[in-house]
Every structure is written in C-alpha cells, then in structure tokens.
C-alpha cells in the first residue's frame, strides 16, 4: 500500500511539471500585451510608464526565463500578482476557493440524494413504468446544457414562483441551492444511469441469488451487499465529476453571481489577467489530479481485486 502511494506520488511530478509548462505556454500564445490592457481603459499613459511596468513585471524577458521564475515562484507559494487588482493571485484564488468547494459539495450531496434512490429503484423495478419514467428523466437531464438548466431554474423558481434568491450571497444559505441544483441536474442524471447499471449487474450475480434462496429480504440484500460493491463505482464517478464540476462552475457561478473561483476566472479572462488565469488553470488541474489520486488510493483500499498500477490514466 505504502509502496503504491509513493509510486503514484512520484508519477505525479512529471505531470505537475507538464501542467505548469502547458498552462504557462498557453498564456503566452496570445499577442495581447498585458500592460496595454492594464492602462488602456480610460486614461492615457505614456510609453515610458508602460515600458517601466513591463520591466517590473518581467515581460521583456525570454519565455523560458519567465517560465523559470514563475515556476520558482509557485514552489515558494508566490504565483505572481494580478495585473488588474495588483494583489497576489494565490490569495485571490484561495479566498474564493471555499465558495466553489461549498457549491461542489452541495451539488454532490444533491446528486446523491436524487441519484442513489432513483438509480436503485430503477434497477429494482427494471422494465416497469417507474423505471421508464426515471430513465426518461435522467435522459433529459443528461441532454441539457447547464446554462439552459440555469436559465430555466431562474425563470421558474426565482422569477415565477419567488421560491429562491437569484444572487449568490453569504448571508442567505438558500442562495447556494439554485447553482448547486443546476450542476446536480446533469450529474444526477448521469449517476442515476450508472447506479442503475451497477445495481443491475450486482443483482444478477450468484451471491444475490444465493441470498435470495436463503430467504434474505430484498432490502437487506440491497443495502448490505449490492450497495457496498457499488460504492467502488461511486468513488470513481465522484472523482471524475470533480473535473466537470470545476469546469461547469465557471459557467454556473457566472450566471448566479456565486463568488467562487469559476466566476473569478471568467472575469480574469475578460480582463486578460494572465497571472490569474494561469494560476486558476494550474490550481484546478492540481485539484483534479489530487482528487483522482485520492480516489485511486481509496479504490485500491475498497476493492483489493484491483491490481497495482491499474489507475495510471
């Protein structure tokens, strides 16, 4: 076990280097001049002021030198300063991260609350009208882009029915519900289908038939045996969902004014705030990688059948 974890951690190093290099290179693809962007809003500033600022930001140095000093900064926890606000980008991202994590956790919770029972019911009642309705709904949820879901939720829940507030706000706990629901719709749809498939597969196995013949009740079989083994699938699913949640958060947070990193990133993109975008991309990739690593380890732990080296994807 220890050996496995160490191996996975070592494997991580080239990936993290690759992530940083790719993120950094990506931002240099643009021929936009950040200093022009910085000053060119309303007031005129002389070229000398701009040149001084460029030198201050190190923008006049060659690519690899800039990358090297940036990477050095990352290691020491200094990821540069925002071109726009002038404040350290890491600090900006860290102050917004809790809101995004909250949003993700609530939407995962909502997903489980809906998908677990629906998936199981759908599997247990396979072929019935209930199963068909559930499958249809999960299909619908899976085919709607999240921005469309967001607009529909806003229209019905906030505008028509006045049930929920529109704006993200720390003062009102209900404000997390609509953005979380938006993310949970497509995720829940996916999970329902997957859970149904896993439960069906497990229900068809010999041990279930054996238990049934011994007169063990269906509910006990479900909770004790089937669920336990579906847990493995769930862990993998959840880890992968983190990626789509982080991406979806950018759109959903922007629509609902949820004050998290996704909204911060979209704003940074609009104002061409490279250090912030870079740090955002690197951090999101980092989180994604770490979550998947954790899931692999957990997977390993939950299901001893998985052979070493299985999760190298």
């Amino acid at each position, binding site marked *: 076990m220890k050996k496995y974890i160490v191996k996975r951690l070592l494997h991580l190093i080239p990936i993290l280097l690759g992530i940083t290099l790719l993120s950094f290179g990506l931002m240099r693809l*643009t*021929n*936009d*001049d950040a200093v*022009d*962007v910085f*000053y*060119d*809003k*309303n*007031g*005129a*500033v*002389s070229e000398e*002021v701009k040149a001084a600022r460029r030198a201050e930001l190190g923008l006049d140095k060659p690519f690899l030198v800039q990358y090297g000093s940036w990477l050095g900064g990352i290691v020491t926890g200094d990821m540069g300063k*925002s071109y*726009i*606000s002038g404040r350290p980008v890491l600090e*900006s991202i860290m102050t917004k991260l809790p809101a995004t994590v909250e949003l993700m*956790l*609530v939407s995962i*919770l909502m997903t*489980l*609350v*809906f998908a*677990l*029972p629906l998936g*199981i*019911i759908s599997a*247990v*009642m396979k072929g019935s009208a209930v199963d068909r309705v559930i499958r249809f709904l999960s299909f619908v949820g899976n085919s709607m882009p999240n921005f469309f879901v967001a607009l529909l939720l*806003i229209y019905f829940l*906030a*505008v028509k029915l*006045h049930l929920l*507030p*529109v*704006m993200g*706000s720390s*003062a009102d*706990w209900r404000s997390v519900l609509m953005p979380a629901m938006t993310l949970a719709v497509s995720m829940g749809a996916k999970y329902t289908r997957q859970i149904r498939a896993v439960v069906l597969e497990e229900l068809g196995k010999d041990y279930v038939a054996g238990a049934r013949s011994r007169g063990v*009740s*269906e*509910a006990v*079989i*479900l*909770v004790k045996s089937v*669920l336990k083994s579906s847990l493995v699938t769930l862990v993998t699913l959840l880890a992968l969902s983190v990626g789509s949640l982080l991406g979806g958060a950018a759109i959903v947070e*922007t*629509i*609902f*004014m949820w*004050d998290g990193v996704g909204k911060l990133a979209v*704003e*940074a*993109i*609009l*104002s*061409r*705030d490279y250090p912030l975008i870079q740090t955002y991309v690197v951090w999101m990739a980092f989180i994604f990688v770490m979550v998947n690593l954790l899931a692999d380890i957990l997977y390993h732990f939950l299901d001893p059948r998985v052979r070493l080296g299985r999760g190298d994807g």
Partner: protein
Amino acid sequence: MMNSKKAAVLAALALGGAVLLAGCGGGEKQQASKEKVFTYGTTAYSASNENAGTNPHNSYVGWTTIRYGIGETLFRFKDNLELEPWLAKDYQQIDDNTVKINLKDNITFSNGKKVTGEAVKACLEALIKNHDRAPGDLKIESITAEGQSVTIKSKEKTPALLNYLSDPYGCIIDVEAGEKDRIVVGTGPYVAVSVTDNEIVLKKNDKYWGAVKPKLDKIVVKGILDGDTLTMALQNGEIDAAQGLPYASHELFNDTAKFTKSQANTSRVFEIDFNFKTPELQDVKVRKAISMAIDKEGFTKVLLKGNGAPAVGPYPDSMTFGGKAVTASAYDLEGAKALLKEAGYQDTDGDGYVDKNGKNLELRYLSYPSRQELPLLAESAQASLKKIGVKLNVNVTDNYKSFRKNGEYDMFANAFVTAPTGDPEYYLSTHYLTGASYNYGFYSNPTMDALGRELHNAFGAEARAKLAIRMEQLALDDCAYIYASHLRMSLIMKKGIKGLTAHPSDYYEITSELDKE
C-alpha cells in the same frame, strides 16, 4: 416478491433521506434588525473595472470612493457639468500657472480630524506620487499650504486644472490615517467598514460636515456584473436599487406604484472611428456615405429602448459645446448610395455589394462586448450598411486590443466618456490631433492640430467652448468619426427610495440625500 421490492424501494428512499440529513448539518443564520439598511446593486463595481477598493490613488478606484459617498473632491460638477465648489470655498487664479484654493472651514474627515490646507497638500502629493494618470493630467510643480488654503503651481499652463482635480481620483482622503484592509478615511457621508472585490459595506458617518446629514445606518453596495441577475435581484426585492440594468429589462420596472426611475444623459458616447490607413476610406465620399447609412434613431429607440439620445458630435446636447452647436449629415440611404456611385462604387456583378475595379467594398469592423450597447451597434451597422451595398465584417471581441494594435480594422467602434472633467480639451486632444493617444483612425489635419494648440493655451470657458465647436465641426466635415448615440444612464429603485439621482457625470450616486422609507 412484490412486497420485498416495495421494501427495497423504501430502503432506497430512506437512504437518500439519510444522505440528505447527514449533509445538512449546517444551521441557518437569520439576522433581524431595526436599522435602516440600503442594498445597492451595480454592474459598475468589480475588480475587472479596476475600481475595487476605496483608495482613490489606485487606477479607477476613485470612482468607487466618490460614487458611494466615501470621499469628496474640492470642486464638483453641476448637472450641466460646470464646476461648483465642494470641499473648496472658492479659488483665485493668481497667474497662468498658479491657482490658490481656499477650503471651507467646517470640514472634517470621518475620523474627526479637520481638513486643512496641509491635509489637502499631503493628499494631492500622495496622489501624484502614486497614481498613474494624475501626474500627466495635473502637471503639478509644487503645492504649498497655509491655514485653510492650498496654492498649486503648475509646470505649464493647465487651464483645466480644477476640472482635473474634480476627477474621482481627486477625492480628498486623510493620508496620515493610511489604508487599512482596503479602507481609507474620506470626508463623505458614509464610511466603509468592509471592502472586498464584490462588495462594500458602509455605515453612516456620524461626524459628516454637510448641512444634510446621512440618514441610513448601513449601506451594502454589491457588484453584480450580470445584468439579468441584477434584474431579478431587484424584482425579488433582494436589492433596493440598481445601476446598469440591461435595456431589455427596463420595461419590467414600468410599474410606477412599485418602482422609480432616475435618468440622466451622460457624456459617454458610442463612436465609430474610420481608419484613414484603409485606402477605400481615404475618399471622404465613402466615409460620408457610411456615416449617412447609420440609423442612429433606430439604434437608440429600438435597440437601446430609448435609453439614449442620438448623437451629433462627441458631447451631449446639454453642454454649451454640445450637439446643438454642430451639424452632421442625416440618415439618408438614397443619398448614401448616390455618394458611393460618385466615388465610383456600383454593384456591377449583382452580388448585392458595390464594387470598384472588380473588388467589393468590404470593411473590417472592430468592437468589444463589455459595453452591452456596442454589440448592438455592430449588428445594426452591419445590417444598415448592407442596404447600401457595403459589406461589414464584424469582429466584436474582448481581444480587440490585439487586433487594434495590429491595425486589423477599418472601423473601430467604442464607448468613451468625452467630458469626464466638464472641459472639452481632454477628448479633443486625445482623439483629433495627429498621433494622439486615442486617435485610432490615424486622422490628421493640420488645421485641426493648430486649433488644438490654440485650445491648450486658451483660458476662459467661453473661449474654450468656441474653439471646441470649431474642432468638432471640422472633424464632422472630414467625416473622421461617426457619433451614434449618448448613453442615458438609469438608476431604478424600489418605491420609497429617496434622494438617489442619476448624474450626467456618472460620478455621484450615494449622497447624504439618500433615504429609505
């Protein structure tokens, strides 16, 4: 079998409930209070607008300081954008390069400290030391303080000095108190208590010097960049008033029993610059034809839903050197077609676009989407010009600066506040003169440059207005710019909100007049 299935279903449901309960450990917060709280939503406050914070000595943060009643300037603009004293009592122009400003005697910062000549001197010195644009505008050589007066000596003639001092960056703050947690000490009716990139919380300044005392206990200013969220927040009553609502939502607030509107025509103009480096556009007839094909009326009435005024020149009609003093050619499609024909453009191949020497008249139109009006103008211009056979390739992008830098445009549409200081020189000198910093069309006319020099050295509002009008008319006759419309800014609030008025300068929003019933 069926029964045990039912049991299984029940178990599944119970499981869902259990997950829900396990996750909902968090409690609810509810705060009740009898204090008067005003919540204000605005699209204007954000880090990307470079005005997050309260320290006016940083980029555009001064707009925040002044808009939300934290700071005040020495002079302020009246509704016609002429100056009147604010923290200042009066001033004397000692010579071309020297002005003495006398301060009112009863002004204190929110920390109780008196605003003296020395304090103003310290603030202005910090301003020119720290701010990026102020030193170039003010051209200050030295400042001396004596009792309740400051004397400013300029490096060169700066006729618009007092106007520049009334820019939001000129808010007078107590520099000795410094900046803590992004909060500075000003003289305004409200005091910031917490500042983030999206929200400012203010409380009443109990020591406010003005005759009208602030009436609200607490104000929350929320930066809400998304127009639709803002709309629904106002509808749901989550905010008391909103600035920057999308035009399409204005009609939702027409019910005067529930909402009040306050509107003001601003000097923010939507303009299109012709690129004089484009060979086809070097012919004044082509530029004129295009100018005549822009439907300013339709753009303003339909697309902006009447929230604007069709523009003639760069300044709004309300100003002495504004739209009423100049003329531009009217919307006339037939006339435009005739002009194109005179210039040698006709549709010979029947593809719907006019051509000359076998080449269609096809132009690249560059603009950006961060002002909601500009994409509308782009699409409207594209459709209008198609009617006279000119093909516009529209490129509306946040990335516009790199296209502009590379000269990849024949027309560039943008929004610009033409009279932020109430004086005409700022806009004219940055747009009309050869090589000027915002002269993106590379327009150049020696007569114009001479007039510009004359304006730079002219004192007296009347003389400056006269020169400005001549320059504007010359630019319009040269068809260097198309002025589509002036923005009418709107504040929409719940019934019962008093004293919140839109101001043509776009500087003053929350004042001591603000009250909530």
